[in-house]
């Protein structure tokens, strides 16, 4: 990990582009950089073209700080994948409720990406403004003593006890509001955590359909992460798939003989979502 980060820094100095995810401030930042690197406008084609690349950067997600952002990356990745998949399907089939949901998700992604780009562009104006003004010199000369004496005598009414009470209040930890954010900010979902759930269930049941496997997962991010976990386990040769007919029920069977916590911890480190997605 440390090595790839160093490589990333080198890349930045050379071609103004970095590999490490920690250099990107969120999924939109990464997505915009990918689009800019290929000198494309933001279009559906552009998004689909950079999907694989975007998802390959998800491999870089590591450490608590980045995991904290993982859910947002996952939501964007899922939408990108959906769009790519939909592009591969015959047009006529896109009429059910799921495809309407896909269109909505796609439009939302476009709108958010455009909004993000607008703020990013205007932030350059802020940067330039700060820089220009930092070079300006306002008159700022200490008030002469004779004028300072004009200030009225301080009226002090606090006892030392009052003063201590004031200090206690000022120094007390402030309540950090935790309410009301959940609907604005997708909660954090860890692929490994979801994989642990999948493994536990499969080991006890042997075979489960994907529908059964996601029962109990209420959040979209959880379902996405659980699906990615299944793909991961497949790559690790821990499960096998069976699907009788196209778009039919997907059955997953546990097949690993040896599986331990270390195997779980390694999960995702060799994750290559781009290929698995299509």
């Amino acid at each position: 990990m440390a090595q790839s980060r160093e490589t990333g820094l080198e890349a930045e100095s050379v071609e103004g582009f970095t590999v490490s995810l920690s250099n990107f401030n969120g999924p939109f930042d990464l997505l915009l950089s990918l689009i800019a690197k290929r000198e494309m406008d933001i279009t559906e084609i552009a998004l689909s073209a950079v999907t694989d690349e975007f998802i390959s950067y998800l491999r870089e997600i590591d450490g608590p700080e980045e995991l904290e952002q993982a859910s947002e990356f996952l939501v964007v990745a899922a939408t990108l994948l959906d769009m790519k998949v939909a592009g591969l399907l015959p047009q006529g089939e896109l009429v059910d409720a799921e495809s309407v949901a896909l269109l909505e998700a796609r439009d939302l992604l476009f709108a958010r990406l455009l909004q993000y780009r607008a703020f990013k562009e205007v932030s350059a104006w802020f940067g330039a403004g700060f820089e220009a003004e930092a070079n300006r010199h306002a008159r700022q000369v200490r008030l002469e003593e004779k004028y300072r004496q004009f200030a009225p005598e301080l009226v002090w009414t606090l006892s030392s006890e009052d003063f201590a009470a004031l200090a206690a209040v000022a120094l007390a930890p402030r309540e950090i509001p935790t309410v009301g954010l959940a609907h604005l900010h997708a909660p954090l979902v860890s692929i490994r955590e979801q994989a642990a759930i999948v493994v536990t269930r499969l080991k006890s049941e042997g075979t489960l359909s994907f529908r059964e496997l996601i029962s109990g997962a209420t959040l979209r991010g959880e379902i996405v992460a659980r699906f990615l976990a299944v793909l991961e386990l497949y790559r690790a040769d821990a499960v096998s798939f069976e699907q009788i007919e196209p778009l039919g029920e997907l059955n997953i069977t546990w097949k690993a003989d040896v599986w331990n916590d270390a195997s779980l911890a390694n999960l995702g480190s060799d994750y290559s979502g781009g290929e698995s997605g299509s």
Partner: protein
Amino acid sequence: MEAELERKLEALLFVADEPMSVVTLATALGAPVPAVRQSIERLVEDYDGVCPSGVRRGFELREVGGGWRLYVREQFDDVVRELVLEQNPSKLSQAALETLAVIAYKQPISRGQIASIRAVNVDSVVRTLVSRGLITEAYTDSETGAIHFATTDLLLTQLGINSLDELPQISPLLDDGAEGFDGVA
């Protein structure tokens, strides 16, 4: 009489160490606001050397951050730079600039709303902006308990503008992107 008001105004601006609103100046001068406003305009022209025999001074009177303040004229910044020991605050990160832009255009706005636009956790950046005095807690939503943030006059001063109206229009930026594909809200 009016000239006298200008000289008094000059004296006040000379001791001020932050932008002075017209009302503050008028109160200290005991003069009507419109008269003060006119005197300010004449002083600006005076220092700019607008009148025929006028001298373009080494300083100028600028309207920034909701008030008036004397500045060294830009062309002489180099001359004074060496003399003035300034501790310029460190530059803001790109993430901080972007967050600041979101707050400036969407204020008042909660941390969660900023996070959903930027798609990242913004807690530490918001703290930095608050301690720099560029944003402040505007109010706390009584239902959700979410603190809403707004920009300060110090932000305007540091950007060299007088009001939020002077921020660049952001809707054209959004429109530009929308061209080229349909169906975007």
